[in-house]
């Protein structure tokens, strides 16, 4: 077990040194959530209906923005080659790397989303639901981002290509995420979309690392 723990602590230490990357996603999330009510009229009903999509969209863009430097620096200094040769299975090493990366880019989003949601007059229980939905959807999104970052590793300017690959695959999560939040605000039962989100998260936890590992192997050879 110590290989993964060693890698995890190394990732934590590196992430502290590279805190600027995590900051870009965080700032984007915070800005979108804050600026939107400023621009549009801020009466209660309108903001309550719009908080779901806004939260999901800003989480989506934040994780997409900070996705590019997930494997890029490790690719440049050859650490991924060393990982491939290590004793533990490469797939679970990639899982630890993705989780460590999620910890630094998406977890702050979830914590701050309580504050930003209160701007939209969301009740306390609503904020809890929003944070739960964000937790589930960012976990799934981080795996999809990891796959896309791995596939477009060798390409110099992968920006547009990444968005094109990500959007169709992340769409169900956005749909069901904003649906859960809307239902929770309207007081309707949220179990339906929530089950779907958890199901998607489970699927991405098992499929994600394997596909990212094979994508890395392809773009490394």
């Amino acid at each position, binding site marked *: 077990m110590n290989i993964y723990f060693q890698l995890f602590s190394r990732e934590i230490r590196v992430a502290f040194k590279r805190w600027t990357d995590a900051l870009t996603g965080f700032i984007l999330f915070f800005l979108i959530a804050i600026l939107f009510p400023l621009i549009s009229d801020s009466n209660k009903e309108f903001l309550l209906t719009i908080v779901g999509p806004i939260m999901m969209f800003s989480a989506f863009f934040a994780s997409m923005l900070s996705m590019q430097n997930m494997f890029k620096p490790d690719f440049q200094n050859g650490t991924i080659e060393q990982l491939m*040769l290590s004793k533990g299975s490469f797939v679970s090493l990639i899982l630890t790397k993705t989780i460590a990366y999620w910890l630094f880019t998406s977890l702050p989003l979830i914590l701050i989303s309580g504050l930003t949601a209160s701007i939209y007059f969301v009740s306390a229980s609503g904020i809890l639901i929003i944070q739960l939905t964000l937790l589930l959807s960012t976990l799934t999104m981080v795996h999809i981002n990891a796959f896309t970052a791995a596939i477009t590793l060798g390409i110099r300017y992968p920006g547009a290509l990444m968005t094109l690959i990500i959007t169709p695959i992340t769409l169900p999560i956005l749909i069901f995420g904003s649906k859960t939040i809307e239902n929770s605000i309207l007081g309707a039962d949220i179990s339906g979309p929530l089950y779907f989100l958890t199901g998607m998260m489970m699927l991405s936890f098992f499929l994600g690392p394997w596909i990212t590992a094979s994508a890395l192997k392809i773009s490394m050879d």
Partner: protein
Amino acid sequence: MSSGRIIWNKISINDIDSTFQNEVAYLGHKNGLIGEISAIDNLRMNPNISDLTQLDELISGFDLDSCMQNPVETLSSGQAKKVALICLISSGRSIWIMDEPFANLDDASKDFLALKMDLHLQRHGMIIRTSNQGDLSQLSKLEIILESG
């Protein structure tokens, strides 16, 4: 066309259950160290390194004691290469694949490295290395000279 197969203790290496991958220590152009964190952290938290017993001896051998604390980015390429060599040597793997190990090393470190490689060969490990200066010392048993062009 690439053809032919590499067999490692009777199992072809791209089989699922081949242990070849865990026996190889590789040092290519990129030295496989993370620039931001310090050299000692790189060594201590590297998932490939199993035994850190001879770490101090290696550090003093390559006289890197002074610069073990500062981040690898700030080290010169020669020093970074030495840190990578330490990673390779202390990984306890039986096959070493190295790309020009003696490039941009000062003489003292070259002898120290040659000593370590000798030691490794005596413990019947295997070293596959490339070198363009043609300084193939008496160590090498099988040389393949690749004429260019």
